[in-house]
């Protein structure tokens, strides 16, 4: 089962390695990991998407909480949080299908951010379902390259 865990950490030397090392050392999976400072520059927020049964996730949360530089751990359950992801993808296009790809992007409220003779680069933001669907559709046109931020999340209340 996929879980999103938010980890508020001290913005200190080595903190990312400590968190990542904890996952690898204990055999936990990371599907995605996003980290950046919060409005308080002494703190960073990590959003980690991981996979595991309830007992595994319970251990992950408690082990993260033990790290001295971890200030707070939140294990989001379904529906209690807002999550977004940003994806940049470069789709191979020619004269014949450029308009079709641009139209598809518009349907998904994605933005074309760069146009080259043989490709379009598209920026899309959204929740997991929307992103996955868009990527699947774009595969039909030929994705040349893709990068994604991984999920970022905040609690609703």
């Amino acid at each position: 089962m996929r879980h999103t865990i938010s980890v508020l950490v001290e913005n200190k030397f080595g903190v990312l390695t400590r968190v990542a090392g904890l996952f690898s050392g204990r055999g936990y999976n990371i599907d995605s990991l996003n980290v950046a400072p919060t409005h308080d520059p002494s703190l960073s927020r990590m959003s980690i998407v991981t996979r595991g049964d309830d007992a595994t996730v319970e251990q992950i949360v408690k082990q993260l909480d033990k790290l001295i530089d971890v200030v707070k751990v939140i294990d989001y359950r379904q529906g209690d949080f807002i999550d977004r992801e940003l994806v940049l993808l470069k789709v191979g296009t020619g004269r014949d299908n450029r308009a079709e790809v641009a139209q598809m992007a518009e349907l998904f409220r994605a933005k074309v951010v760069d146009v080259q003779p043989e490709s379009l680069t598209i920026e899309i933001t959204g929740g997991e379902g929307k992103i996955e669907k868009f990527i699947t559709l774009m595969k039909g046109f030929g994705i040349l390259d893709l990068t994604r931020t991984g999920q970022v999340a905040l609690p609703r209340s």
Partner: protein
Amino acid sequence: MSQSTASSKAPAPAAPTPSAPREVGPLMYGRDIFVEALERAGVEVIFAYPGGASMEIHQSLTKSKIRTVLPRHEQGGSFAAEGYARATGKAGVCMGTSGPGATNLVTAIADAYMDSCPLVAITGQVTQAMIGRGAFQETDMVGVTLPIVKHSYLITDIRDIPRVVAEAFYIAESGRPGPVVIDFPKNLQQDRVQPVWPTLDEIKRGLRGYNPDIRAGDLELNEIIGLIEKAERPVIYCGGGIITSGAAAELRKFAEAAQIPVTTTLMGIGGFPETHPLSLRWLGMHGSAVANWAVSGEFEPRKDPKQPAVRLKEGADVLLAFGVRFDDRVTGAFSEFAKNATIVHIDLDASEHNKNKRVQLAVHGDIRDALTRLNGMIAKRGGIQKTFPAWHQQIAEWKAKGSFHYEVTPEIANSDHMKDHLKGHEDQVILPQMVIEMLYELTGGNAIITTGVGQHQMWSGQWYKYSEPRTFITSGGLGSMGYGYPAAIGAKVARPDKEVIDIDGDGSFLMNVQELATAHVEKIAAKAIILNNQHLGMVVQWEDNFYAGNRGHTYLGNPDNRAQVYPDYVRVCNSFNVPAEQVIFRKDLKAALQRMLDAKTPYVLNVMTPYSEHVLPFIPAGRTVADMKW
């Protein structure tokens, strides 16, 4: 909103404004600030081996009131620091230079992590400008030790020295103790600044993500009393947490008030007096049969784990797990351990709850605080009504048949040891258990015992009885051979008033034999008994049980002359100016032990024993009480 947050941590303001004027020192070298910070942390002794990246600090130490003990290998120094810590509860301090000096500390750091031992390990680092360039003796020490530390620091700003050192000691010693690494670049040792000394309060406030002061809830404690009143067969299973939190007196009060039998883990030995009528001794793979039965029940002995387990007697129906971590050497197969018991687990480390074994009541808090309050509740309600007479009767029956025992088996009678070393005096054979039993009698149980790792370690737990915390110092979790003698040095430095004896194996003793020099030169009267069977006895035991006795490089003697005692430990010790004796015959044992005890200097007894002796009881790894040989 169903959000599970960590309860122990609450964000506090990032930079608390100082309410009082801060203590600012005169312009000082980084190395001098560092050593003064150690002094302010209450450090009395440091086990430190110098090198290029740490010699600056050694220069400062020559002017400090801190005693510097020079080990002969960084691993010896770091195990000695652990021995000091385990004997006192204060952080042990060791130091090595960058690169190999630092990596030689790694085993002790891992050991301290597994056994929750407060250790501050300091490493010199190459100058900051050279970090990452593959400089001479450069190792990324913070990176190397990341998975085996409670916390670690690379000092990057000379102004951070006072804070880093104060935090390191606070973190190492508080809560569930553990190792903290401080990596200290050489250029910062040589730079100068005016130090600003933080208060402990400022240190605590600065650590927003760390709160070691956790107390159990009243509701949970009341529930425990309710469970005891409903129980028929309660058992207390307690561990190293009792010792680290200083809860031994409260535990005894609690056990006596509720009349509940007590078993400890190997790490918990000394947390409850083993001479007490309620003591079941320690449990697990080589623990007492009585303790294992009391926890999980008595079974028809079976040869093959595929056969059904037939229960003869019920084990505990309520298991009070206090400051333990359900280690696999204790539980065997997790699912079968205390299978029919309602398990209460009090621990300061919430990540230990439900990690290896699902429990019915997980209580997060300090065990001394919890036991103190439980004792208060029991006193207030006028005691526990239940007295469990049938259960105590059952345990008395188990004790009558399941105590530790030894005998000269046919395997011993026909062993090479008899042919090679006893030659016609076979009746004079010394079994390892006899040595420890006799040592117990001669010392009245008042010594501090340290051990290496293996058979002798288990026998040291079985045949010496411990009544006080911090008197059995052993590498439990990591199982580090070579731990015993350096740990004895550290313990003796901490407790010069106590007799400190390393009961060791020949394999383990040889791994840090160079520390004989430390003991002699520093005049540290740590004693050692080598139970020398010329083999890696524990591996031999497994070879006998699971590999038809095929020896896979477990012989440590001289293959070209098996009758020779190899190496000659008496000559080895004498070359270090340490007096030593070899004992082969039983008639010589008592007098030799007495001479060792009477010595005011380091002293080594090399006692020859048969390698064909096995440690019993024995529950093979991952098996159950039904598979126990005893």
